[in-house]
Every structure is written in structure tokens, then in C-alpha cells.
């Protein structure tokens, strides 16, 4: 079991770091780099949403944290002159702190109520970005410089993006590394004591509270981790697009994050990654269908839901029987 997992992991690494760039180089579809970078970053955000699903909460507010993260990084880089690499964790931590403050009251809500409040949260973030002076209103923050180099003790780990001949590959590599780290962390969380406790919350909150699980602390913790992921995804997005607007992340994006999780399968750690890939990449490929793009996309989504209501990864379930 251990060996096969290691094999699968290395196969995945080989695919994303070697085969995909080779394939893109061979076909000349350089735009795929941008699409796949977006997939990797969105799946980081979706990983956060998945974690809130894991404690039994429907989170439609990830767009808010992505927007906040993007703005924190953009403001620090443009106005404070801070290195992008430093703003990345700062953006994540800032989101985590905000989410603790917001989460303390709203995590008492359940089911549809929590879902609706988080949906409203996305609107709050957008409207705040429009109204606050520091975010520069509807004009947004533009011409954010590309990330500079990251060096430790004079040793260059990541070269400055401006000096790269093809920054798109650089962004792709960076986003994929971020995605892999995120999912390793997520996988570790799920297979730890914390993960077991989260599962108990998902199944029955009263029962787990009655046997001494600190449910209030756990759900705030899970929500903070989730928002941290959202924040760093948003910060990376702002840096790649070199701009951020109040409309960069709207309600539709929040809903999409949730859909990625659903489609991949809520019971599987790698579900959101697969779901993001299928939905986002599929959407991109469907652009050849022009005005029928949305029709086909949503039609396929509804069909998938009818055929596999428990997510695409539930296909594996039938073969192996259980987890």
C-alpha cells in the first residue's frame, strides 16, 4: 500500500513537472500554462473549502478570502515595497486572523444558514473593496511588479520573475509546488488526530461535544486553515495577473470553489483538485463551442451530478469497496 502510494505520487510529480511542460512545448499551446496555473491555484482555494466541508459546513465564502489575500499582498508590494515572497504568508495569516474573528460568531450557524452567510461574506468583501480608500475603489490596484528573487544566505532559490525568459513556466511551477504542498498538508491533517476529530464534527456535533471534543475550537481552527489557503491562492493570483480589482473574486467564484469540491467528491482529499481540473480545464476547452459554451458546461455538470451524485472519485469506491 505504502509503495503504491509512493509510486502514484512520483508519477504525479513526473506528470506535472516534466510531461506537462514537454507536452505544451510540443503542441505550442502556451496558453495552457496559464490555464493550468489557474487550476493549481484554484485548487488551493478549493482545498480550503473542502476542509470546511469536512467539518460539516458548506462554505461559499472562499472568494472573500481570496480577494482579501490578493489585496493584502498587492498593497504590501506596491505601497510598502515588501518582497512578494514575504507577503504570501502574510496574506494567508491575515485571512486566517480575519476568519477567526468572523468565524467565532458565524460558525455557530449550521447547514444552509452558514452557507448563506458565507455567500453574503463574498459580497461584503467586494463591497468593502469598493468602498475602502486603501483599495483604490473600482479602479483596483494595477501594475503590481512581478515577484523578485528569493534567496537565503545569498543562495538564490527562486530567480526574479522579471529576469526569466518565460515567466509563464515560472508561474506554473510555483503554482504547482504550492498546490502539492497544500494537498500534502491537507492529507496530513485528514489522517491525523485532528482529522478524526473533524470527522466526528461532520457526523454529529452534539455527540462529539458530549464526549469532550472542543467543537468550538476545532471548527474555528478548520475555518482559519481554510481561509489561509484562500488567502495565499488570492495573493498568487493577484501577482500573476499583476492586478486586482473588487470584481476579481465575486460570488460566482465562491460558488465555483464549492462546485469543485462537490464534483471531485467530498469524501476524498484529492477530490477538490480533480474537480477543479475537470471544471476549469473543461470550461477552457469548451471555449471552441462559443455561445453554447455555458450550455454544454452546465449540462455536463448536471449530468455528472445525476450519474455520480457523490463526486467523480466515487468511481474508485466501487472497485475497491470502501476507503
Amino acid at each position, binding site marked *: 500500500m505504502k509503495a503504491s502510494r509512493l509510486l502514484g505520487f512520483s508519477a504525479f510529480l513526473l506528470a506535472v513537472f516534466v510531461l506537462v511542460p514537454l507536452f505544451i512545448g510540443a503542441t505550442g499551446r502556451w496558453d495552457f500554462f496559464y490555464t493550468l496555473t489557474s487550476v493549481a491555484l484554484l485548487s488551493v482555494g478549493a482545498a480550503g473549502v473542502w476542509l470546511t*466541508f469536512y467539518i460539516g459546513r*458548506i462554505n461559499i465564502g472562499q472568494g472573500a478570502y481570496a480577494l482579501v489575500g490578493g489585496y493584502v499582498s498587492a498593497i504590501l508590494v506596491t505601497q510598502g515595497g515588501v518582497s512578494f515572497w514575504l507577503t504570501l504568508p502574510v496574506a494567508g495569516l491575515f485571512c486566517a486572523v480575519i476568519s477567526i474573528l*468572523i468565524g467565532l*460568531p*458565524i460558525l*455557530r*450557524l449550521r447547514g*444552509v*444558514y452558514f*452557507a*448563506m*452567510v458565507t*455567500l*453574503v*461574506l463574498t*459580497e*461584503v468583501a467586494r*463591497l*468593502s473593496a*469598493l*468602498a475602502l480608500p486603501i483599495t483604490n475603489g473600482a479602479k483596483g490596484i494595477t501594475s503590481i511588479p512581478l515577484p523578485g528573487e528569493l534567496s537565503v544566505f545569498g543562495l538564490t532559490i527562486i530567480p526574479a520573475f522579471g529576469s526569466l525568459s518565460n515567466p509563464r513556466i515560472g508561474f506554473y511551477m510555483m503554482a504547482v509546488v504550492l498546490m502539492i504542498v497544500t494537498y500534502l498538508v491537507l492529507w496530513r491533517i485528514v489522517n491525523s488526530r485532528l482529522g478524526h476529530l473533524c470527522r466526528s464534527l461532520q457526523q454529529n456535533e452534539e455527540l462529539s461535544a458530549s464526549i469532550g471534543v472542543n467543537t468550538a475550537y476545532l471548527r474555528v481552527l478548520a475555518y482559519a486553515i481554510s481561509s489561509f489557503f484562500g488567502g495565499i491562492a488570492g495573493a498568487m493570483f493577484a501577482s500573476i495577473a499583476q492586478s486586482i480589482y473588487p470584481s476579481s473574486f465575486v*460570488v*460566482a467564484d465562491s*460558488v465555483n470553489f*464549492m*462546485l469543485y469540491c*462537490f*464534483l471531485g467528491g*467530498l*469524501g476524498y482529499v484529492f477530490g477538490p483538485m480533480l474537480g477543479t481540473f475537470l471544471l476549469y480545464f473543461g470550461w477552457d476547452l469548451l471555449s471552441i463551442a462559443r*455561445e*453554447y459554451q*455555458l*450550455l454544454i*458546461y*452546465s*449540462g455536463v*455538470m*448536471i449530468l455528472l*451530478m*445525476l450519474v455520480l*451524485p*457523490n463526486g467523480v472519485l466515487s468511481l474508485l469506491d466501487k472497485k475497491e469497496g470502501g476507503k
Partner: protein
Amino acid sequence: MEQIIANGLYLGAQYALIALGLTLIFSLMNVLNFAHGQMYVFGGFVTYTVVVQLGLPFIVGLLASAVILAIMGAVIEKFLFAPVVRRSKRDESTMLLAAGIAFFLDAVILLLFGEKQRGVPKIVNGVFNWDMRIIMPYDRILIGVLAILLIVVFIAFMNYSRAGRAMRALAQDRMAAQLMGVDVARYSMLGLALGAMLAGLVGGLLVTITGVNLGMGGPTSIKAFLMIMIGGAGVISGAIAGGFILGMMESVGLTVLSAYGDITYLVIFATLMVFLAVRPQGLMGKPWG
């Protein structure tokens, strides 16, 4: 002051009608209908097509919206929601379905009606003017009165008809209702059809005043969610209260806060978050009854 209250009442009547449909669907199916705003837009476009392009009277357009949306709701329940609810491991799966339907309806609206803003000419002319204190066009008054009338009819239907009683029973306890011989499948279908019909009717009513366009669906859904959160999800009186409260807040906010820029909704949202932190189930949140 009187003007603000009149505007608030008018807005509130529309909102309450939208929220009623959403809350009905929610209480019966436990589904948060993401496609509610799209259904509303669809209803508006149907009325527009019948009235402007076919040249038929407004009431025909309104009826056409109601019938078409009711059929759409029934079909969606029968062939989409029912199978997924039956086979899915988690309740939330229906949300993906609802969101998918919202996208699908957006696509259908785009293909059928285009992306232009559409409106229907005024159905009555003239402006009501009470001593310069309340100024309101007659068509708005008519639409407001029609909306209130529809709300009354809906409540009467839910309270006194056999089908209404069955639906209330379903909302209270699905299992118990089934054991008492209520045809669950049939009344679920009827409930969704009714909810969709209400959305279509509001669309048909409002197309005469504000018009409709493709982009209105999502924001309308969010407003409807707000209303049922204020009032309490799944409660008729809550939906009505939520609709009127939101209408009033919007009307007051647009007047009082206009000096500070476009922050009315920001204030409403912030207030709502605080309110929900204190009272998570909304004003009247309790099982339907």
C-alpha cells in the same frame, strides 16, 4: 419621509414574493435554490416576449410566465432533484445541482432572449401625487398591489387548501407526512412548481418597471437569500417579514446613506452578520407551521 416608506413598501412587496417562492422550495426539499434569480429573469423574459413581440395583453404575458415557470419547476423536481436526493450520500449535493441549473438557465436565457436589457411599456400611465409628499407612478402602485394580492392568495392557498395543508405537513416532518398517506413525490413536485411559478410571476410583474437582463439572476438570488435569512428559512411569515424589512432598509439606506457613497448594501450586510450572530435562526426561524 412618507416617500421613503412608500418606496420601501413597494420594494418590500416584490421582495416578499420572491422570498416566498424560495422559502417554499427550501422548506419542502431542503434545497437552497440557487436558480431562483434565474427563474425570475426567465419569467420576465417570457412576459416581455408575449407582450412586446407577440403583442398580446399584459395579463396574458403574466399568465404565460406563471405557467411556463411552473412547468419548468415541476420538470426540474421530477427529473433532477428527486433522483439526486434519492441517491446522494450527503444533502448538500443538491446544492451543486441547483448551481448547475442556475448556470444552465443562464445559458438558455442567453440563447433564447439574448443579453440585452428588455422592458415592457408602461401598463398604466400617470403619476400619483399626494401633496408632493408621496409621488409614485400609477403602474408602480398597481404592481405593488398585485404583488400584495398574490401574497394573500398564496397564504390562503397554503392555509386552507388540501394541497397547501399537505405541503405544510411535508415541511414539518417528511416522514410523518408520508406515514399519514401524503403523496410525497407529488407534493414535492407541486411545491417546486409553485415556488418557480412565484419567481416567474415577480419577473413578469417587474419587467414592466425595471426591465430584465441576463445579469440580474445572481444578485436577485443573493437578495432572496438575505430575505429568508432575516425572516428565518422555511417560514412563510418570515419570508414576508424579511422581504418587507429588506425593502425598507434599502429604501431608507439609499436616502440616508447616499452622502457616503454606495455603501447601503455594505451596511445591510454588516447589520445582518451581527443580527445572525445574535439570532442564528432569523426572526421567526422555526419549523414551518
